């Protein structure tokens, strides 16, 4: 079946409507891929194929729910009712939410069938999925490389054809960067668009939920049915509904494009630069105007983000102590009475549970965050980092007077090798250089495949093992490079149409 080689929810919905396929067949095909590839790829923390089977049992086509019966993947930090959700962390192992995240509830309402919870960097902290307590996920294009993070499992799963759509969370680029590393579309909505109810918090003022899809139109569909107030998240703005499809094919003849000038210093891989320059040329030929834009405080963003995010994380993760959910180390020590197990006292209890439950990157960030928030340091670090946001917003507000969207590469380098960024935490942080501007200002952004690059010699031999066919069923000997488009807050319509225009001529 052709449609399975390039799964898309729109295409599948069309086939379902015409009666040409049944959800059973879709699920069967997806299950086949999961069984074949998952042992190598490790994109999922748990499979829920049986559940999905059950969900599509009595399916009949309903035009009010055109996507019913289509499989989806949910990131494992989004609460799914009755399905374990552990954020790829030991400290939440076995936690089964008694309630559903708004995003998940709305997806389920549309009739999508959950086929699995995806692997991720623990609690969303990481850019490669290597910080998962359950082991890394791999990049379907090259199993010696990372799929990106923290939504690496979601991206890998979609790229490997497990499902046409997955949801991820983007706090510091965690939807866009893995989408970029896996040749997919990843959308980070404006902060305040989509409810965070049920999203297990990492950094409350930076977290968003966004779709990872194979097409831009699919992303637009996904945004349409998850966005909007739900009466539970006080940070969601009350806005009238927009029809993204009214403008999505309009093209960009009237769009003024800004090209992010970051000096394109040494830290941007020359292969990325090559692809990006080609992208810029394309925009020059199609947009109303193209000009370079500079963000004065760009150099501060990394430090500011990596002060704020850990600070909020140290707060949001304070609740994990083994008392109410998740494994409790002391009590689990068999043969010991409660007294013996907690002989060290309450503090010892906390230390053991948290010490054994959190991985190295999470521990690192909690320490940094606790420090940055403590008295005597709060003003110098947390407060100053917040001021960078104000500065950034002011600068962007000025820029938006002259441009409608800003483009840049999504990542400064192609998907890197497993283990190559683990020695120095800063190496991992630098992978985020292009994707922090949006969380720090609340702006929406989308990553689409901008082009490809050949594998270097290093990767070649590793790839030989699965050279004949990648998970896609295509022969792949290249790595994807993502193009990122950023728009002003709440201007997803422009974002989507710019991405669509580009995609139309590139895929």
């Amino acid at each position, binding site marked *: 079946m052709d449609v399975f080689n390039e799964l898309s929810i729109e295409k599948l919905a069309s086939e379902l409507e015409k009666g040409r396929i049944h959800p059973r067949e879709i699920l069967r095909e997806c299950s086949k891929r999961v069984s074949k590839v998952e042992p190598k790829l490790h994109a999922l923390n748990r499979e829920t194929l049986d559940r999905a089977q059950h969900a599509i049992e009595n399916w009949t086509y309903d035009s009010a729910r055109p996507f019913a019966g289509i499989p989806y993947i949910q990131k494992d930090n989004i609460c799914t009712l009755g399905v374990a959700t552990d954020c790829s962390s030991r400290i*939440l192992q076995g936690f089964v939410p008694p309630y559903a995240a708004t995003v998940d509830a709305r997806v389920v309402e549309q009739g999508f069938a959950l086929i699995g919870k995806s692997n991720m960097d623990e609690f969303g902290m990481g850019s490669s999925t290597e910080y998962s307590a359950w082991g890394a996920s791999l990049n379907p294009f090259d199993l010696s490389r990372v799929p990106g993070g923290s939504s690496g499992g979601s991206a890998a799963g979609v790229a490997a054809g497990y499902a046409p759509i997955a949801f991820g969370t983007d706090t510091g680029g965690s939807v866009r960067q893995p989408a970029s590393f896996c040749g997919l579309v990843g959308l980070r909505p404006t902060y305040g668009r989509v409810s*965070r109810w049920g999203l297990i918090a990492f950094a409350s003022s930076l977290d968003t939920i966004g779709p990872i899809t194979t097409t831009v139109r699919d992303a637009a569909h996904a945004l349409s049915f998850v966005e909007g107030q739900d009466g539970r998240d*006080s940070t969601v703005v009350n806005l009238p509904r927009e029809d993204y499809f009214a403008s999505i094919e309009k093209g960009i003849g009237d769009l003024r494009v800004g090209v992010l000038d970051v000096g394109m210093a040494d830290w941007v891989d020359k292969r990325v630069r090559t692809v990006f320059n080609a992208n810029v040329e394309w925009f020059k030929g199609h947009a109303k105007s193209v000009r370079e834009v500079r963000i004065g405080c760009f150099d501060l963003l990394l430090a500011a983000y990596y002060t704020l995010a850990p600070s909020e994380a140290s*707060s949001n993760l304070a609740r*994990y102590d083994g008392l109410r959910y998740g494994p409790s180390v002391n009590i689990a020590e068999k043969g010991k009475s409660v*007294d013996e197990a907690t002989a060290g006292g309450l503090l010892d209890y906390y230390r053991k549970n948290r010490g054994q439950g959190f991985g190295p990157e999470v521990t690192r960030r909690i320490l940094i965050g606790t420090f940055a*928030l*403590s008295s005597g340091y*709060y003003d110098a670090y947390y407060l100053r980092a917040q001021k960078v946001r104000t500065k950034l917003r002011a600068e962007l507000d000025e820029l938006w007077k002259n441009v409608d969207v800003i483009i840049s590469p999504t990542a400064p380098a192609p998907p890197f090798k497993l283990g190559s960024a683990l020695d120095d935490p800063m190496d991992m942080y630098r992978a985020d250089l292009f994707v922090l501007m949006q969380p720090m200002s609340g702006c929406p952004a989308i990553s689409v495949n901008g082009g490809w690059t050949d594998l270097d010699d290093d990767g070649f031999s590793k790839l030989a093992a699965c050279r004949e066919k990648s998970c896609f069923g295509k022969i792949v000997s290249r790595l994807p490079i993502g193009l990122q488009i950023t728009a002003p807050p709440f201007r997803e319509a422009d974002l989507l149409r710019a991405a669509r225009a580009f995609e139309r001529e590139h895929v």
Partner: protein
Amino acid sequence: MYCSCSAAFGDPANTHLCPVCLGLPGSLPRVNRHAVILGLKAARALHCEIPPMAQFARKHYFYPDLPKGYQISMYQFPLGTNGRLELLTEQDEATAPVGIERVHIEEDTAKLFHEGETGSLIDHNRSGVPLLEIVSKPDIKSAQEAVRYLKELRRLLRFLGISTANMEEGSYRCEVNVSVRPSDREQLGTKVEVKNLNSFRAVERSIEYEIERQTKVLRKGGEVRHATMGWDEKEGVTVHQRFKEKAPEYRYFPEPDLPELLIEGDILDDSAFDQENIPVRKVRALIERFGVPASGADLLMSGVGSPEENPYFITNFLMEAIVRHGAQGTQAANLMTGTVFEFVNRTGMTLDQTDLTPKKLADVTKMVGKNELSSTNAKRVVNVILEEGGKVKDIVLGEGLVQVSVEDELIELVKQVMEENEGIVETIRKGRVNAIGALVGEAMKKSKGQANPKRVNELLQEFILKKK
């Protein structure tokens, strides 16, 4: 405070739960508008400066009764600052008000039950219940003043419908900070915090104990160390809980899940209220304008005998009797605090459930004023109305309570009594003036209680002591 679970006290453990007050992963807070309104009302009643914006903040510490590992409270931007609580002394004289540092709202923790051997249990019903925190300025100068402050504050909160403010149910809690310094020094001494105070008595005793303890330390030339003490009710002493060399590290930062609270528009309107309508002011009005005796005024403001929804019912009743129907203030107040309260306390009824009206009360006092009814019988009449109902005139006539005040009749009565009790008259003449009481008693007996005892006494004095 941040979810819609019930705040009811006393239900089975862990029955008012939701992801928010349990602090489940992925849960988010939502502000309880009504709690904000009540908090603002309190701030305004305490004459606080109300800011244009308030902000919630996270206060972090680890403890099993704090599910999120932080409490959503307020820090830099509370609901009100720099106010005062007006107080009255025991003589109900106005006294210097106690300054209010700040008023803010926050959420309560869960409740821990320590089972000793088997461990501790956590009941999350209380988790997330709204709390109003009111911090006083260091103006209170004695244990008694502290208790008066707490009582008046409690009365204010109850009368405004902000809280049941009940120490036994845990809806009114207090912590005390005590410091002492030599009288010639400006700067305040090091303060010591005292916790575990479960009654006004505990507050009073603990403050007195701390004052004494700290004074002793300082007199010996020592230094008072900043510490947190627990009050041991049984032993009557404060006990070290921990030494706090510096303030605890709460790592406050603005709550990112809740936007700033703009204090304007309908929130201001809904928390508006009449500054004259606070208990202290009403008490003063009763004393100064309506001639109500001081001791009675406070008692009238206790809320006893009033329908649940309106703690001002009794005072409004009294004021209506005085202002609308011309009742004599002192008389009417005494009847309320005496006869009415006694009835209410005995039967458990509320005043509005009886047949007594402000007009009837006024009519009774007017009769006393005109000497048509003795004060003793006035009480009787009111009692009958309370117990059985009826009209004032009917009862007075029916029970033969009309007071004999006609001067001639009284003179006649007095002369008779003197003639029948010559012995006593003699002892009075010889100096035992008190014995007049016995003669008054005889007169009352003879007149079947209808004589005006006051006038009888006056006449006896005139006849016995002035005639020589």
